[in-house]
C-alpha cells in the first residue's frame, strides 16, 4: 500500500506551527517512513502535484490569497487539520479584528513609527497584491475542517500523536501537557 500523502501550508501565521512539526526531532525520520510529503515548505514543493490524503493548515485568513489557498487545500486533501491558534481563531493577527481595516493600513504604511521611508505616502494597491480582508477569519469559517490541534504552537507531541493516530488507526493519546492554547 502506498504511503498517505501529506501537504502543509501557512496562511496568516508565523510558521511557528511548522517549526513545531520539525520539533518532533529524530522522529522526523519515522515520519518520512510513514507518509509522503507533497506541497509543503518542508520539501519546498510549491504546488500540488496530486490529490493528497492529509492537509495541515497553519494560520488564519487575513487576505484573499489565504481564502483561495484554504479552499484549494480543502479541494485537494481528503482530511484537513487546523493547526494552531491562528488557524483556529485568528490568533495574534486577529488582534486587529476590533480595529477598522483602514486604521490598520494607515498604521502600517503611513503613521507607524517605522514607515519613515514612505515619503510619498503610498498605499500599496497593485493588482498583484492580495486584497486585505475586513478581519482575520478562522479557517473553519471558510472551509470544512476535520480536526483541530490547538496551541501556539501546537506541541510537537500533539502533532506527532495526531498524525500517527490517523495514519496507523491507533487511538489518539492526549496527555495533559500536550493540549495547550499558548
Amino acid at each position, binding site marked *: 500500500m502506498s504511503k498517505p500523502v501529506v501537504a502543509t501550508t501557512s496562511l496568516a501565521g508565523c510558521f511557528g506551527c511548522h517549526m513545531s512539526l520539525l520539533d518532533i526531532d529524530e522522529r522526523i525520520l519515522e515520519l518520512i517512513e510513514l507518509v509522503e510529503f507533497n506541497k509543503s515548505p518542508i520539501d519546498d514543493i510549491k504546488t500540488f502535484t496530486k490529490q493528497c490524503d492529509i492537509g495541515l493548515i497553519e494560520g488564519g485568513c487575513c487576505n484573499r490569497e489565504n481564502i483561495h489557498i484554504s479552499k484549494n487545500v480543502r479541494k485537494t486533501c481528503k482530511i484537513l487539520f487546523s493547526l494552531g491558534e491562528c488557524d483556529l481563531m485568528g490568533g495574534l493577527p486577529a488582534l486587529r479584528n476590533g480595529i*477598522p481595516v483602514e486604521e490598520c493600513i494607515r498604521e502600517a504604511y503611513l503613521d507607524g513609527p517605522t514607515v519613515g521611508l514612505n515619503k510619498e505616502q503610498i498605499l*500599496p494597491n497593485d*493588482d498583484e497584491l492580495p*486584497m486585505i480582508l*475586513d478581519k482575520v*477569519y478562522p479557517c473553519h469559517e471558510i*472551509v*470544512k475542517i476535520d480536526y483541530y490541534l490547538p496551541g501556539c504552537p501546537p506541541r510537537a507531541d500533539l502533532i506527532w500523536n495526531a498524525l500517527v493516530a490517523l495514519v496507523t488507526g491507533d487511538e489518539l493519546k492526549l496527555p495533559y501537557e500536550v493540549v495547550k492554547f499558548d
Partner: protein
Amino acid sequence: MKDKVQNIIRNYHDDRTRLMDILLDIQAEFKCIPAEAIEVLAGQLNMSKVDVEQTLSFYHFFTYEPTGEYTVYLNDSVVAKMMGSDEIARAFEDEAGTKFGSVSEDGLVGLFETSDIGMNDQEPAALINGVPFTNLTISKVKELVAGFKAGKDVNDMVGQTGDGRNSDDLIKSMVNSNCRMQKGSVLCLEYEVGSALKRAVNITREAVIETVKSSNLRGRGGAGFPAGLKWEFCRKSNGDVSYLVCNADEGEPGTFKDRVLLTEMPEQLFEGMAIAAYAIDAKEGFLYLRAEYNYLKAYLEDVLQKMRDDNLLGDKILGSEGFNFDIRIQMGGGAYVCGEESALIESMEGKRGEPRNRPPFPVQAGYHNKPTVVNNVETLSTVVKIILHGADWFRAIGTEESAGTKVLSVSGDCRKPGVYEVEYGMTVNEMLEMVDADSVQAVQVAGPSGVCIGPDKFDQKISFEQLPTGGAMIVIGKDRDLLKEVALNYMDFFIDESCSSCAPCRSLTVILKNKLLKLMNGFGTMNDIDELYDWSKYMKQANRCGLGQTAANPIMTTIDNFRPLYEALVKTDDEFVSEFDMDKAVEASCKYVDRVPNVH
C-alpha cells in the same frame, strides 16, 4: 440641578433601596439621568458611580441622554409588526426628521423602539411621554408630530377616550379595554366591594389559607404554583415581618389582561391583596406596576385612597383589631425579567432586576430578606371570588388540575382581539372560533417563552396539564413568515431582555439567533437545524430563571412543530456552507487604498 436631585433623594430619606423611585423622578424631571445627577446620587447614597449606573443602565426607560421633549416609544414586538408598525415607524421618522434611536436636532422629538407595551389588541401603538396612543395610522402620526411642533400637551392629543373606565377623569386614555369577559364567570361575577374582605377577617388567617388551598387556585402568571401553599409557606416562615407583592409587571409580549383588570376592576384586586395580606399577616403591600402602565397610576392611587376611606385598607381594617395593611405602588423602569418574582424583589430594593438563586425562596427570604408572597394580578383578583363563593364552587369550574377560569389576552390575526375569561379546558380550536379567526397557521401560546403550535395541536386544552399559559394567545395567519416575523423577533426580544447574569442566557441567545439568520440567509445546512435544536437544550438545562430557561423556545418549538419551514431554508446537500462574503470582506480595504476589487 444639584439641588433638585438632592431634594428628590431626600424625599426618599436617602434610602438607596428606593433607587428605582429616585431614578424615576430624576428621569421624569430631566428626561434623562444626567452625569451630574449620577455624581450627586453616588455621593448622597454612599455608592460608587458605577454602582448607581449598574441599576440605572438596567432599565429601558432610564437614559443617559435626554429623550426629547416628546419621547415616542413605539412597540416593535411581533403583533405590532404584524399590524404595520414598520410603516408607522417610517412615518414618524419622515415627519419628525429623525431616525429611530435618536432625538431630532432641535431636541423636540425622540424616537425609540420598545418591546411590547401591553396594547397588542390595538396595535400599532406607542407611548408618547408615557401616554399610550393606539391604533396608529400614518395620518394620525402626521397629526401627532404636527401637535409636537405646535407645542401641544400630549394629553390634549388623545382625542376620543377609550371604552370602560379608560374614560375616567384620572385616566382619560384612548386605550380600549376590549373586555370580552362574560358576566357571571368568575372575575366578572358582580359583588359588593369589601364583602369578601369582611368575610375573610371574620375567620382565622389559617382558615383563609385553607380555603384558598383547597380551591386549588394556581398562580396565573404562568408558573402555576398553588397560591394557598405559597401563603402557607410564607406564614410558616419565621419572620417578624412579611410582605405581600402584587406582580403587575406583565411584560410577556402578547399579554395585556392585567391592564384590563387594573383598569376595569382594581377594587377587586386590592381587596384580594388585603385578603392575602390578612392571611400571611403582612402590614405592607406593593403593587409592582410596569413602567408602561404609568398612565394608570394616578387612577389607581385614587382607588386606593377611596378604599382607605372605606376602611378596606389602613388601620384596623373593617374593625378587625391588629389587621393593619396598606399598599404602595412601586413603578418599574422597563424590564421584562422583573416579572420574575425574585427579580421583581431585587428591583423593589433599588437594584438590577436579576433573579435570585433559590433557595432561599421569596416566601422564606424575599423583600428585605423577609418572607414575601408575590402573586399575579389575576390570582389575587380571583381570591375575592373564592372567599365569597367557596373552594368547592371554584374547584368545580375548569379541569382536574386547573381549577377556575383563565383570562386570555388574544391578539394577532383574528377579528375579535381582546380580553376573554374562559373556563380552563377550552381547546385552542374553540378559542379560535370565539375570537373569529380563520386561516390560522399557528398560535403562539403564552408569548415568546411559551410554545408555538400548529393546527395539529389545536385540539389541546388550555390548562396547566396540557397547554399552560399566562394568558397571551397570539394568532398567526397563514400568510405570515413564521420564522422571520415571529421566531427571529422573539430571539431579539430575549437577547435584549436577558438580565445577562447567566452565561448561556447572555451569550447563547446571540449564537442561536445568528444561526437562525444563517439559515434564513440561505447558508444553512441540515446539520445547522439539528445544532440549533441541540444547542437550545442548554438554555433549559443551564439557566437560572424562567426567562433564560425558555429563551430558546421560539426556536425549539418552531422546530418541533414547523420543521418543514426550516428545511425549506436549506438550499444544498453540502454538509458545510461558509457564510463568508468575499465582496464584502475586501470592500473597505480596497476602497481605502484606491483599488478596484477583483474577486472573480
